[in-house]
């Protein structure tokens, strides 16, 4: 009945699946076909699990036939390749794990599967989620579906590109310093990073444990609400997972913007914002006002400190998290190790790419004797100040509105030799991770050269409902999120 079901959102598909106007198996086949055609260009997937997807679709169809399906039953999605998936290779975009087939499943994917979602495959990503452009993957760069000469953002660039290019109804990403929101903004889709601890990290390959958080990447805020509903909730296997009930996100989705106070932090609009982004965000602000929100100027004075703080703390945690990749129990091992130290140093040097090694070196340095206080401890204190800034702002407003990125997607290779410039592209998203807050990026316009621009809404801890309903209200009134790249 549809000419192309791959353009539909979850909520649109769920109805047709439920009414049996389309089968999940047909849907999966449509996506697999499209992936076969388009993925070689975009490189959004590392692994396609054809057999697994068809099997899961058939199971979903059986459940739907028996009227036992939920809103995600039979919906085909992509999963970032750092969620451990039982019997499906999980590479984390690295040579180190190029052959790793986990004998266990992440909590996120097992919950999604239990809700009936069908995993098409594992999406490409910056190696170990370290990158903002998806150029550090061992499995090749991911290209932005809006302009194949540009980056899709990172590190969940494969998931973003997959959703944007119609290679999955939705995808799952992770966000340590903006890795869901930044690529979502640069590829014109919706992406939410929940409150730290809202979604279990069990089975998610760790980058920076105190910052990592998984979230959905979707066509609409409504789809994000549907997926998050299935993903969120306490997990006894993750000691940092929050033990409080998950609200019904769909129930509050239409709460609207009337009377809500939205803070606009001045520091996000200071120098550095491209003129296209600045003007598009200005328009969006008006739209929010038109929808009944009150815009309130606020200040987050420590905003500028976020990048250095993050690039001390995240690499420090990463240097330790990545110590387990030693060539003994899983993953890459060098040829003919001479002794145990040679096994360690060569397996790691050959198994990790240059950005990962750079961050391991950095993290090792800031934790090492003599530098801990000057870098690591200092950064932990600044982190507290950043979090306190947000706390103060949220005594005055319900939400914060900012651009997601200072600029649109840059050209492939433009910043690969300049790590500092690369790091600065996360300037608007990193603070949120440091403070552990929920935030969403939604499409809010396009640049003059037709590249998507994203708007970020930041909420109070555990107020995913608030940012989802605000995003939904905006999407009900605008069409930016419905635009699709031509491929």
């Amino acid at each position, binding site marked *: 009945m549809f000419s192309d079901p791959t353009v539909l959102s979850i909520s649109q598909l769920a109805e047709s699946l439920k009414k049996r106007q389309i089968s999940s198996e047909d849907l999966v086949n449509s996506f697999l076909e499209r992936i076969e055609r388009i993925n070689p260009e975009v490189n959004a997937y590392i692994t396609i699990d054809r057999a697994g997807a068809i099997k899961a679709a058939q199971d979903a169809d059986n459940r739907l036939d028996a009227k036992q399906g939920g809103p995600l039953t039979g919906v085909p999605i992509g999963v970032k390749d750092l969620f451990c998936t039982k019997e499906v290779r999980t590479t984390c975009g690295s040579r180190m794990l190029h052959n*790793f*087939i*986990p*004998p266990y499943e992440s909590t996120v994917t097992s919950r999604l599967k239990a809700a009936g979602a069908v995993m098409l495959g594992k999406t490409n990503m910056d190696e170990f989620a370290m990158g903002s452009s998806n150029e550090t993957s061992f499995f090749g760069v991911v290209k932005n579906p809006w302009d194949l000469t540009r980056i899709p953002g990172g590190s969940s660039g494969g998931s973003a590109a997959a959703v944007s290019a119609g290679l999955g109804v939705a995808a799952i990403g992770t966000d340590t310093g903006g890795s869901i929101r930044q690529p979502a903004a640069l590829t014109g889709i919706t992406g939410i990073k929940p*409150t*730290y*601890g809202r979604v279990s990290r069990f089975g998610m390959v760790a980058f920076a444990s105190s*910052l990592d958080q998984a979230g959905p990447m979707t066509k609409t805020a409504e789809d994000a609400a549907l997926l998050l509903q299935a993903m969120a909730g306490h997990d*006894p296997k993750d*000691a*940092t997972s929050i*033990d409080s009930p998950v609200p019904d996100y769909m129930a509050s989705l239409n709460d609207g913007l009337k009377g809500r106070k939205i803070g606009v932090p001045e520091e996000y609009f200071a120098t550095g914002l491209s003129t296209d982004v600045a003007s598009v965000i200005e328009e969006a602000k008006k739209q929010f006002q038109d929808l009944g929100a009150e815009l309130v100027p606020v200040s987050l004075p*420590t905003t*500028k*400190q976020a990048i*250095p*703080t993050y*690039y001390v703390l995240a690499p420090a945690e990463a240097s330790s998290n990545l*110590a387990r990749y030693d060539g*003994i*129990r*899983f*993953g*890459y*091992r060098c040829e003919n*190790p001479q*002794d*145990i*130290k*040679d*096994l*360690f*140093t*060569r397996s*790691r*040097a*050959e198994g990790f790419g240059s950005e990962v090694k*750079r961050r*391991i*070196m*950095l993290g*090792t*340095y*800031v934790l*090492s004797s003599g530098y801990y206080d000057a*870098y690591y401890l*200092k*950064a*932990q*204190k*600044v*982190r*507290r*100040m950043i979090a306190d800034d947000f706390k103060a702002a949220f005594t005055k407003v319900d939400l914060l509105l900012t651009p997601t990125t200072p600029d649109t997607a840059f050209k492939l290779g433009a910043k690969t030799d300049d*790590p*500092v410039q690369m*790091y600065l592209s996360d300037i608007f998203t990193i603070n949120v991770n*440091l403070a*552990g807050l929920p935030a969403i990026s939604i499409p809010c316009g396009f640049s003059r050269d037709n590249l998507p621009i994203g708007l970020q809404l930041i909420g109070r*801890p555990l107020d995913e409902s608030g940012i989802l309903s605000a995003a939904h209200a905006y999407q009900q009134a605008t069409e930016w999120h419905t635009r699709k790249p031509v491929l």
Partner: protein
Amino acid sequence: MSITADTVKHVANLARLDIPADEVEGYVEQLSQILGLMDQLNSLPTDGVEPMSHAVEMLMPAREDVVVNSDARDLLLACAPDTEDGHFRVPKIIE
């Protein structure tokens, strides 16, 4: 604080990364640049600020002392690059 070739070699040793001699200078340069960015933090007074190590303030949950896992040796060993007789195999370790 300036990074030297010796710093890079020391850190590489701690991190168990084999850095070829001709790559050391590159690391010196890049790490210096990044640390330059970080030195910006020094301008911010942080006296009396409590360090923050977790994103969310919470108490440690604990589990009951019960055995829930059964023998998974073969599944786990199947992931390893080299095994022998139920063990992970590595080059001879000499203390």
